[in-house]
């Protein structure tokens, strides 16, 4: 159960980055989590509600994108996706695989903010701006 400390790190990182957007409200935070990262989405979601209370992230939505395990199979000379975590063998040729290329990710991909009423002629900073 280390999801609370993971989510707390997310809150700290996003809060830190928010300093560049004064007055902004966080709508959504998107994570990329590898299937081998040893975290459970339900626990992340549960902890997120608690960890964001009283922070600029309160009320925002946590979106978790799970990344499958990708291994490099030398005999096949290509990247293969493991269908599960019960056997680290190539699903194509059946040989054992040990060269992990994806699956341990635990990162914040992006977050979405509401900067308030559109200010005409406001300078755009980095990031994708969407007006609704």
């Amino acid at each position, binding site marked *: 159960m280390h999801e609370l400390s993971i989510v707390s790190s997310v809150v700290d*990182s996003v809060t830190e980055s928010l300093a560049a957007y004064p007055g902004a409200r966080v709508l959504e935070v998107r994570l990329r989590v590898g299937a081998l990262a*040893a975290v459970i989405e339900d626990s992340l979601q549960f902890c997120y509600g608690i960890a964001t209370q009283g922070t600029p992230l309160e009320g925002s939505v946590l979106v978790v994108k799970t990344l499958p395990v990708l291994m490099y199979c030398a005999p096949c000379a290509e990247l293969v996706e493991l269908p599960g975590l019960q056997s680290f063998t190539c699903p194509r040729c059946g040989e054992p695989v040990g060269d992990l290329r994806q699956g*341990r990710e*635990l990162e914040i991909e992006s977050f979405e903010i509401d900067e308030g009423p559109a200010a005409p002629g406001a300078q755009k900073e980095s990031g994708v701006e969407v007006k609704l």
Partner: protein
Amino acid sequence: MTTRIVELRRGILKKNDELAHGLRERYSAAGVLVLNLVSSPGTGKTAFLERTLTELRGRGARVAALVGDLETDNDARRLAASGAPVRQINTHGICHLEAEMVAKHLEGWDLGELDYLFIENVGNLVCPSSYDLGERIRVALLSVTEGEDKPLKYPTLFNSADAAILTKIDIAEPCGFDRDLALANINRIRPGIRIFETSARTGAGLDAWLDYLGERRAERALV
């Protein structure tokens, strides 16, 4: 309203990873081989480590250990009986060790005076796998009393290990332990991993383990 998507692409455990990277460089510069021992509570990490420290000292090696638990310094006192310098890390509720805790507890130790440093993690088969402590070798332990399918139940940890230890093999038979199945399961999750079958009580399998440590340390010295 005006919405904006801010790309971060930042590792959630970036702070821990950076600290661990710094520790790894320190260990490497000092020439000390660092191992992180991970298992469930009750697998026998402390008994295995007590024996390992004593045997290594008997071979003339300079060893030290850090041991993590939520509370008490019982394990540190047990390990210190080997004569090696030992420090207890109490996490007070946190279910794993983090690089920062390790760095803090290394203060005042001259790593250049050590050949081996063992870090006994908090007994837990899930959370420690996410936290790099800067170790060179992650060791997953499994006892004959736990069930042969544990590697399948906790693949994230067994897949991240560099070596696996079966403990308490002296009581394998009365426990009805299926050795072949356990070895096959470990290999399914971490193909080709070095596995040592040991008993801290009888000393079985210890020589192979100590030889392996010596080899890995020599390798390190060549780098």
